[in-house]
């Protein structure tokens, strides 16, 4: 069926590059992830960053926060398990005075409500919803409608919602899904004088594969 030419929701294949360029015109550029996310992170979207422990998902999330706060944006961390480490964040380049930290006393309901309030208040550059290490049972009790509510709250705004968890949470509501894996740990020196050098991780972009020709990356995280 031919698309009505006046309907803006319909695009032809020839219009696709222009549409993508418009959508990413004010995106948040992450130099370290430029191979993975060529156009940066589009505003008004949800991003799932997932992976097991030591897979580098928190490091990637803090890198995104560092880019946003360095550009003068006000960001927020909604922390379920009170596990945010200010020293690590500062070492990653996060401007702590422009970062709001909400500690949610291990209560998933408080966490989701706090995130909801912050997203509806508006004006934040990046909101990091940290659900890592939460029990699967607690996460399964979060209604799926919450993620669509968040998506509606931030669409057409400049806010990016980052969800950090052991497994993808927002699923279809998210624009990007960064799945992280550990490849190896690097140590230096001979026993007993060994020292942790860093961790090699493999983040993979599982969505919008057509827009990102290379959907995986090997990163070395310096300890």
């Amino acid at each position, binding site marked *: 069926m031919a698309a009505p030419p006046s309907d803006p929701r319909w695009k032809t294949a020839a219009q696709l590059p222009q549409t993508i360029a418009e959508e990413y015109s004010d995106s948040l550029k992450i130099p370290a992830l430029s191979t993975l996310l060529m156009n940066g992170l589009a505003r008004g979207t949800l991003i799932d960053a997932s992976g097991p*422990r030591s897979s580098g998902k928190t490091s990637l999330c803090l890198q995104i926060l560092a880019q946003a706060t360095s550009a003068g*944006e006000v960001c927020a961390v909604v922390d379920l398990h009170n596990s945010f480490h200010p020293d690590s964040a500062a070492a990653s380049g996060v401007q702590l005075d422009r970062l709001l930290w909400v500690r949610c006393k291990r209560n998933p309901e408080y966490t989701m409500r706090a995130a909801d309030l912050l997203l509806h208040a508006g004006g934040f550059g990046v909101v990091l919803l940290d659900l890592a290490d939460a029990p699967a049972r607690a996460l399964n009790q979060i209604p799926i409608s919450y993620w669509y509510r968040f998506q509606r709250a931030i669409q057409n705004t400049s806010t990016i919602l980052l969800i950090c968890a052991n497994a993808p949470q927002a699923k279809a509501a998210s624009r990007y899904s960064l799945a992280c894996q550990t490849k190896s740990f690097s140590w230096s020196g001979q026993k007993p004088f060994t020292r942790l050098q860093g961790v090699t991780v493999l983040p993979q972009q599982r969505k919008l594969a057509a827009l990102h020709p290379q959907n995986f990356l090997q990163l*070395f995280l310096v300890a």
Partner: protein
Amino acid sequence: MYACLYAQNSPDALLDLALEFSPYVEQTSSGAVIFCIDPLRQLLGSPYQISSEISRAGYERKLQANLAIASNPDTAILLARHVTGITLVTPGEECRKLAPLSLSALTSDQAMLAILLRWGVKTCDDLALLPEAGVAERLGPGGVYLRNLALGVIHRPLRIPAETSNYQRRVELEHPIALLEPLLFLFSGALVELCSLLRSQARAARLLAITLDLENHPPYQAALEFPVPLTDHLTMLKLLQLHLERHPPEAPILAFHLHIDPDEPRRVQGGLFLPPTPLPDKLQITLARIAGMVGEENVGAPQRLNTHRPDAFRLTALNLAPPKHTTSQPQGNILRLVIRIFRPALEARVRLVELAPKHIHAPGVKGAVLHSAGPWKTSGEWWTDTAWSRHEWDVALDDGALYRIYQQSHSWFVQGVYD
């Protein structure tokens, strides 16, 4: 038309005399008082009759003062200060009346006076004859202002000091109120009045203090300090509601007292190319709602403390000021490995082989150690209550994760996981 009274020694008496004729009086630093006489025309008649009435009132008070009446305040002040007796200036004659005055009457800027004297300009008449463009080119805006002063063409409103108000309301209730909703209705009325008073005087609220008189209980007192000064009564009412919901009074309320501590309103120049920030008043309500859930001590911007003590920080207010300049990433493309902290640290049972950890068992953390690095001894602040001394290890377990553990006082703890 404006009347100016000037006497060297009795500024208070002059002010009393001026207040007899007008409630709006400007008092200059030199002791002159000036007020508008236009409203007096219907009562007293022409400027000549008004000046007669003022001089008669001054004579009754045994005041010796100069009086000048002119079409603008600055001309009246200059003539009252430098011409003895009564001076009446009809509109259009300001320049002629000011002409004989010396330049030192206009300004005390010695550098400017020296330049003008070098040019041969000695009186107001000389200065008024200079072309405006030439003066602006050579002396800048200050020179143009002096020339206009000499011409008597500067029109400005009187600088009347703002009335000092106390922003407080006390309401006695006919019946004790136990519910929050009717109380908020009464608060709303009082806050509307206070906020309109604040706005009329270009002020904003920095702090809202409430005192509730309770039935058979000591008074309930609370103070809400706002991070940015507010003038919106709805925002204040919402913050007050959230506070009272978190800390309800113990007994029905007999009376309430609201007091606002005023401050300068927040003025911020926005920029087209600056990143958006949350609206301060909306953010305050949001933070108050979140603080109502998780507690005030759990919301804020982290600030690291000036110590080597592990995990030392405090929560402070969020910085909403627009950035003066954006900071670039110092480490470029280097990504840092960060640690997720377990708070409190997980108590662990650790099996050692040749003084190195070989197996760890803690809530949520269990496995054989594949690789370890350590121990790193850290200690400090032994002279305070927050002293610490520990041996830290980085260990890779067979569950595929990398942890930081430490031994303190013969006990083992898992501090966090690298992620």
